[in-house]
């Protein structure tokens, strides 16, 4: 059960990575599976467990865009995944400048 879940997670995470990379030409792209934190949570029951991710993206495309806009860009890139059981993503979306400033 656990290993089957892990395989599914791996494949979804990989697909997400590819899609985000090509859509947003990210310079930093970190995807962390946190589905285990949401196991058994209402609305997730019955799915395979590859549902929740933390995503950190640094992309020049975010320049001049509001937070809502940036999140939409991420959601747009992942539309297929959201259709097929991806439940929630926690998104950190920054421009290269914003990360440099820290």
């Amino acid at each position: 059960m656990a290993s089957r879940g892990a395989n599914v997670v791996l494949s979804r995470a990989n697909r997400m990575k590819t899609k985000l990379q090509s859509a947003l030409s990210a310079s930093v792209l970190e995807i962390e599976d946190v589905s285990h934190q949401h196991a058994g949570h209402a609305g997730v029951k019955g799915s395979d467990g590859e549902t929740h991710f933390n995503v950190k993206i640094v992309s020049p495309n975010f320049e001049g865009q509001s937070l809502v806009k940036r999140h939409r860009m991420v959601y747009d890139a992942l539309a297929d995944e959201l259709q097929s059981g991806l439940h929630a993503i926690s998104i950190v979306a920054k421009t290269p400048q914003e990360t440099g400033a820290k």
Partner: protein
Amino acid sequence: MAKSLSSLLFKGLAGLPATRTNRIVVPGFNYQHGMRYSTTVPNDPDTHDDFKPTNKLENSSLSLRDVVELDVQQNPVMIYMKGVPDAPQCGFSSLAVRVLNLYNVPLSARNILEDAELKNAVKSFSNWPTFPQIFIKGEFIGGSDIILNLHQTGELKEKLNDIAANQKTE
């Protein structure tokens, strides 16, 4: 002050009786979240189509999209979430409620887990795929990441200032 706020928060999260600032029923119109449509259509062949019962949604001129639109117009702070403010059923919804509760503003909420059609209507209204979704004075704000970010940058305080002020004078 901080102490009383956090105890208030804790109360809310523990699912004890609703705090003053949380209301779940949206005033002004009577669409109930989780409302069930009538599914009993009599199979009487003599009944003309015009007289067959239809579901409530068709009967009322209110589409679910209208419901959402009215929600966000009539409620200064509207949240569509998993669970209810006193008992969120998702960590992200819980986080959003905790952040909003810091500001002592009236919070209107609908539980999208109770109504899949409403859930879809909200998604298409905002063109946003996940929950919670927060609207302030009719403006779509975003989900829990964004509300937390606005809280941290101080923008949320500005957005909620006049709502909190209205609360005090009422």
